[in-house]
């Protein structure tokens, strides 16, 4: 229609507005798959950074050039700003900037060219999936403590599987291993890995999956940087351990997995505890049981003992005993008081005795006096007139008596002291 000569068909001529044709071109470009997901390599020139933070530059090679824009948000993710003359790899899409009617490359990623295309793609996918939240720690699930069925996605050719089986056989024999064979390198590997993952999930009993591959070059490991593999791991219904390459190799699968193991052998150790540790756990529980039981019985015993003591305190026998003791106490006190009284009396009595003795005539006899009794011992002779010559007398001295007879006329000589009556003087001798 547009191509027809205007003068041939004047009535049907259609005149487009500039914006219409620009819109048409934009639609054409936007619907082109290649232009919407594009990697471009070239040299940076005319670089300028607008006050808004957006980056405007041109990439060129020997024959042509391409106007580029990078928005501030993507610029912020760059490790370093490019400068004129840098050889770079860009990822982005091409569309028309309608205001000026120019086509431009809108870059969302920029890498120094030296890094290689694979690395650049790796960085792009990593940044994109990270922005989408696929690597978020919140999404990481804990591994089952004691897995019962471990799924392994790997190649059955090679030492990797063999090593993992050996390690598990040595450390943890409580699980069933389910191997889902898959190519782990080459163009078909991503599809096979995704299929193996879904086959393991379909089994239903698998409670953890290891995706493993031995070491190799960046290209060898490339299947694990595939977006479909990353999403399959992210969407897996059970926890996934990635174990790809050597310790230094990081793949997208590592970032998206619930746990990254540095090597396949390490994955075989991380997926389950050592049986020896489990045996130790059982043993410690068993000991704890014994301890607790012993403590329980001990506690019971001491409670019984405490109750027994309480019971004893309340026993009537104890009350009786106490009364008995009280009686004893009273008795003791009474005895003490009485004893004291007795002692006092005894002392007093003894004092009286001594006094009495001092007054006793017997004490006088000790000093040589004698008592004269008329015979018969009933009458003490204290006057001369009481006796006559020839009377029988009894003379009492300190240690006994003896008989005597009154001589002469006792009455006659009664006033003469010191007279010579021998019998009489007998008694008075010594005075």
């Amino acid at each position, binding site marked *: 229609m547009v191509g027809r000569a205007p003068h041939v068909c004047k009535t049907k001529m259609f005149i487009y507005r500039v914006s219409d044709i620009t819109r048409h071109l934009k639609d054409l470009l936007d619907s082109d798959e290649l232009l919407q997901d594009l990697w471009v390599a070239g040299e940076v020139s005319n670089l300028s950074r607008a006050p808004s933070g957006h980056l405007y530059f041109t990439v060129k090679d020997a024959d042509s050039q391409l106007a580029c824009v990078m928005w501030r948000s993507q610029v912020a993710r760059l490790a370093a700003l490019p400068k004129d003359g840098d050889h770079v790899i860009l990822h982005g899409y091409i569309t028309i900037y309608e205001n000026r009617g120019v086509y431009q490359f809108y870059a969302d990623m920029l890498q120094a060219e030296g890094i290689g295309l694979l690395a650049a793609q790796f960085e792009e996918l990593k940044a994109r999936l990270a922005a989408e939240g696929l690597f978020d720690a919140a999404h990481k699930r804990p591994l089952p403590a004691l897995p019962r069925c471990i799924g392994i996605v790997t*190649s059955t050719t*090679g030492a990797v599987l063999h090593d993992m089986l050996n390690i598990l056989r040595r450390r943890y024999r409580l699980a069933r291993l389910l*191997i889902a064979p898959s190519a782990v390198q080459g163009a078909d590997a991503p599809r096979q890995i995704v299929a193996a993952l879904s086959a393991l999930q379909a089994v239903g009993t698998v409670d953890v999956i290891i995706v493993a591959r031995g070491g190799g070059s960046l290209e060898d490991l490339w299947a694990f940087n595939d977006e479909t593999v990353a999403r399959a791991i992210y969407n897996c219904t059970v926890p996934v351990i990635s174990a790809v390459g050597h310790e230094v190799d990081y793949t997208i699968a590592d970032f998206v997995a619930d746990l990254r193991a540095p090597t396949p052998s390490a994955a075989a150790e991380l997926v389950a505890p050592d049986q020896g540790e489990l045996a130790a756990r059982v043993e410690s529980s*068993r000991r704890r049981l014994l301890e607790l*039981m012993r403590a329980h019985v001990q506690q019971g015993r001491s409670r019984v003992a405490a109750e027994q003591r309480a019971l004893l305190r309340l026993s009537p026998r104890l009350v009786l005993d106490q009364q008995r003791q009280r009686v004893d106490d009273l008795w003791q006190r009474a005895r003490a008081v009485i004893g004291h009284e007795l002692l006092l009396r005894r002392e007093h009595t003894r004092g009286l005795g001594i006094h009495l003795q001092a007054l006793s005539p017997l004490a006088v006899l000790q000093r040589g006096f004698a008592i004269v009794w008329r015979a018969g011992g009933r009458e003490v002779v204290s006057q001369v007139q009481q006796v006559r010559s020839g009377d029988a007398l009894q003379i009492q001295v300190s240690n006994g008596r003896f008989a005597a007879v009154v001589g002469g006329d006792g009455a006659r000589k009664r006033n003469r002291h010191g007279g010579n009556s021998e019998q009489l003087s007998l008694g008075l001798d010594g005075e």
Partner: protein
Amino acid sequence: MPELSFEEALAKLEETVRRLEAGNLPLDEAVALFEEGTRLARLCNERLDAAELKVSQLMQTPGGEYVEHELYADTDTGDEQESDQ
């Protein structure tokens, strides 16, 4: 509970210890727990001693379905392949 797996037995054992630890149990309950725990510990050890790693491989049938195929001992894990990679 005759067919307890090791992990079930271990979980029950540790739960039994916890309950006994919590205390405040009548003596016969404590004794019952203790006997149960002792039995579980024995069961755990038996399971550990008897455990043998079982290895199966998923094989795809021509119809596209997956079937499990049991592998036996070390020799079955890829004898013809141990040379490469």
